[in-house]
């Protein structure tokens, strides 16, 4: 009788631990974050045994966390650097779940004063500090608030590579450094003379994306132009999945790539990969 009950208790313990909720953390790009957060919620509704805690920090932080093993999933909105890739090769899968456009954004007041399209050369001149007043571009006589991003941010890498020629290029014209997409969006929306860089999903009435001139043709930062490849500052959004991840984690990543997961990608405003 005693033996039986001990056995029963042991069995219960095992079954409890088998049913215990698995918690994993996903860290990195604040561009990928909304997709991850919504997918985690949808997945949790179907599989209560997996809880995904999503936090930002930037692509560099996401990749570093995976390399150091402090997170179970990494998020990045840029390609890995060769040094980073060397540390990931062989034990971490780099999966692209969506793509988007890095929009060159300006404050509403700037947009309405007539700055609705800029060439790459003009944007580069602003970030290099060669152009400091909107007047020089046909706008109002106002100094330009040039918003740069922290060096670890994926958006910064992609933007600097497309505009300034190298992903770590200096931006001498920068007036202020911002961090997450939300922080940048807030600075732009609260200013009357700002220019910045944001994923197309962060555009709104206060934060307008300008068209980028390519061979004399104005290309708007829209998903359609990412799809047809005409928008010059586009990129893939990456997820990093370590090979030793649990089956649940792997299943969650499959969910991101499934029809339902890709519908979330589309809903957030990015281009699905499938």
């Amino acid at each position, binding site marked *: 009788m005693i033996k039986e009950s001990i056995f029963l208790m042991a069995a219960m313990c095992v079954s409890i631990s088998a049913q215990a909720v698995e918690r994993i953390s996903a860290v990195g790009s604040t561009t990928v974050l909304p997709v991850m957060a919504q997918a985690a919620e949808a997945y949790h509704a179907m599989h209560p045994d997996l809880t995904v805690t999503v936090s930002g920090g930037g692509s560099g932080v996401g990749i570093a966390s995976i390399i150091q093993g402090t997170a179970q999933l990494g998020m990045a909105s840029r390609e890995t650097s060769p040094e980073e890739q060397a540390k990931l090769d062989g034990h971490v899968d780099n999966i692209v779940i969506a793509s988007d456009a890095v929009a060159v954004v300006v404050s509403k007041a700037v947009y309405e004063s007539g700055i609705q399209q800029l060439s790459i050369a003009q944007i580069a001149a602003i970030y290099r500090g060669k152009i400091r007043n909107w007047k020089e571009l046909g706008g109002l006589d106002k100094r330009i608030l040039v918003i740069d991003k922290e060096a670890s941010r994926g958006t910064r890498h992609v933007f600097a590579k497309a505009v300034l020629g190298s992903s770590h290029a200096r931006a001498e014209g920068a007036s202020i*450094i911002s961090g997450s997409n939300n922080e940048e969006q807030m600075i732009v929306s609260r200013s009357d003379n700002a220019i910045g860089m944001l994923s197309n999903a962060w555009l709104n009435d206060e934060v307008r994306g300008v068209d980028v001139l390519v061979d004399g043709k104005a290309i708007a930062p829209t998903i359609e132009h990412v799809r047809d490849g005409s928008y010059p500052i586009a990129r893939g959004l990456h997820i990093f999945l370590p090979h030793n991840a649990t089956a649940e984690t792997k299943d969650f990543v499959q969910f991101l790539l499934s029809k339902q997961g890709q519908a979330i990608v589309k809903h957030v405003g990015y281009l699905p990969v499938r």
Partner: protein
Amino acid sequence: MLILLWFLVDASWPFWHDFGISQLWASEWYPYESLYGLLPAIIGTAWAMLIAMFIAVPCGLAAAIVSSEILPITWQSWMRLGMEMLAGIPSVVYGLIGLWVLLPWLQNTFDLLTGHNLLAAGMILSLMILPTMMVMSQDALRLIPIEQREAAMNMGMNWSQRLLRVLLPQAWPGIRSGILLGLGRSLGETMAVMLVVGSLDRVPQPIYNILEPAQTLTSRIGREMGEAAFGSMHFSALMACGLVLAVAAICLSLLAQRKSKGFVL
């Protein structure tokens, strides 16, 4: 304490070894180009601290004098409760208040490109150290025995004479501790400063220009630590920033510990 220092020295050693102490006054910080000049952040930290003290010390002292010498006892306790509540609010809340209230105000008042600047950081910090300053000074004033006050009154001193010749000199050790604790907090505060300072790694032009975005040591560490790979030179340089902060804080607390006689600082 020694373990902490040893850890910081150890972690930042590759940086000191490869770049040397001259990085303390080098002005370019571009981790990707292996340029690790600490000067912009050191100047930023110093300015933020000075501005904070410039506002908080007179205000805190005045509040302490008013509440312990002038106001009736019920008001005193209310004021103290308020100050203690102010002291308990998490720093990120101060940062958010700064973002939503202070920055637009600064931007409009001084007609600036952006309100993110050293003045904003200093003002937020002053709000955060004001309670410490006031509570410490108030305690020091209250500890002065009633006999001393009566003696001063009997000597026919008027109110300002009593304040300047008897009360403040007596309370000075406590006031000084308040100042030093406030300095320590303004030195180490990260979150609120990070939100309002602008995080631009550039020495202010000219150096007394506190209305441009700048960087402090704490906000640099807060912004970049997540990305720096453990053991890399960037990591080591950030640890060096930490070491500079720790050494400054230790100097401050040694000053605070030192027995004082009269107006010696």
